[in-house]
């Protein structure tokens, strides 16, 4: 009952969408309704003067149907634009926070290196601070790269440069980069991959972005102490990569939205603003452009497992690649 009353409260809905009443879709729908009624009365008044009763009924029915279809399409379009605008606003707010976080690490770490006597006196601590600055710079570069990927998707200019590489070696390198943060959050990594796995044929830089996104999500949304388990296995002509966290899970009602641009799970927003809402959108775009698939299994309150597949090196491709090297 409460949700029904909320749905018909047009002013509240407009406020939620942050739109002025006169440009707010639900209010426009009301206006459309009034226009429709006036249109129908006018149609009735005019046709009743020139045709008989059954002709009037048919005319009014046709006009009603046309007005309803047009009105519904227009309002649906308005609603989509309003929702997109709201999500973009939230995205800008998230990105500005995302940029502020590493910038505050830069600022305070430099302050520490410059002014704290106890810190300056220790070469180990100074080395540690340089490492923090480098890692933070890497994070910012990752963020900017991801935003550029979104822009490439939108413009349709994404070009993949596939090559042969070992997925498990790339995974190990990425995990090593996150270990420091994971350790502080009392999270352990485990990697389960057979030693005889074949190489995959994909754009290594793009797959790196996908794995970084999935590893970062698993670490940030895990509730430590816990384990983030990564597994790689053969699946036909593909390798299947998966990561299981010990996090908050994704509510079932939001499953279909997970790979949408700017989407962030309601429970994720509550706990972390590290996510930008584009990581999984980018991951899906990259994996599918390379001929693979991506998905997840989630249990709210327990864990989420994200997985993707990447094609193995084809015989012909491997031969061409080795010929090129020999040449």
């Amino acid at each position, binding site marked *: 009952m409460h949700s029904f009353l909320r749905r018909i409260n047009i002013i509240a809905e407009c406020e939620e969408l942050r739109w002025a009443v006169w440009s707010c879709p639900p209010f426009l729908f009301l206006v459309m309704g009034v226009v429709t009624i006036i249109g129908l009365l006018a149609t009735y008044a005019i046709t009743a003067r020139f045709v008989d009763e059954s002709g009037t009924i048919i005319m009014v029915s046709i006009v009603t149907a046309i007005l309803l279809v047009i009105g519904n399409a227009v309002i649906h379009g308005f609603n989509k634009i309003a929702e997109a605008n709201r999500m973009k606003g939230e995205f800008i707010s998230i990105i500005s926070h995302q940029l502020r976080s590493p910038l505050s690490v830069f600022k305070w770490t430099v302050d520490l290196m410059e002014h704290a006597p*106890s810190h300056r006196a220790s070469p180990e601590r100074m080395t540690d601070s340089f490492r923090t600055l480098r890692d933070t710079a890497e994070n910012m570069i990752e963020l900017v790269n991801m935003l550029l990927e979104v822009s490439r998707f939108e413009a349709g200019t994404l070009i993949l440069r596939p090559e042969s590489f070992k997925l498990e070696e790339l995974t190990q390198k990425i995990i090593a980069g996150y270990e420091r943060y994971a350790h502080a959050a009392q999270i352990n990594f485990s990697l389960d991959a057979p030693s005889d796995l074949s190489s995959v044929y994909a754009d290594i830089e793009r797959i790196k972005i996908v794995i970084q996104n999935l590893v970062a999500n698993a670490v940030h949304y895990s509730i430590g102490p816990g384990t983030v388990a990564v597994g790689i296995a053969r699946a036909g002509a593909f390798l299947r990569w998966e990561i299981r966290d010990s996090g908050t899970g994704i509510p079932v009602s939001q499953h279909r939205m997970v790979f949408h641009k700017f989407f962030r799970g309601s429970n994720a927003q509550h706990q972390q603003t590290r996510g930008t809402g584009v990581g999984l959108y980018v991951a899906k775009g990259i994996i599918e452009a390379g001929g693979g698939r991506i998905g997840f299994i989630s249990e709210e309150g327990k864990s989420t497992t994200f997985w993707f597949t990447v094609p193995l090196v084809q015989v012909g491709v491997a031969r061409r690649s080795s010929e090129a090297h020999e040449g």
Partner: protein
Amino acid sequence: MKKIIFIEDEPALQHALTVVLNDAGYQVVSALDGEIGLGLIKKEKPDLVLLDLILPKMDGFQVLEMIRKDPETAKLPVIILSNLEENSDINRALELGATTYLLKTNYRLEEVVEKVAGVLHTQESAR
């Protein structure tokens, strides 16, 4: 020696501020999430709390609410250190009883230490 609980989930920020606060003569006990932080506040009986807002397990708003609800900690000074700059977040924190709200990127470490000293001084004078 005055005791400060510092709840911050970014280890680099936690480390940096802890070092300068120690150098300034404060004892700092830190936590990486809201739940552990709240437990420490009850156990350690600090003189002041430095609180981030976006935290795992329990966010800073919830921690602040719990601090103010508990008669033992209701008057404890709480300085918010966050990068959330929306007016709605700032107003919410102040309405919940934050002593002051600092945007991390707008303050240098020594300025945060000065703010801490100022809040503790005001608290002492009020007694």
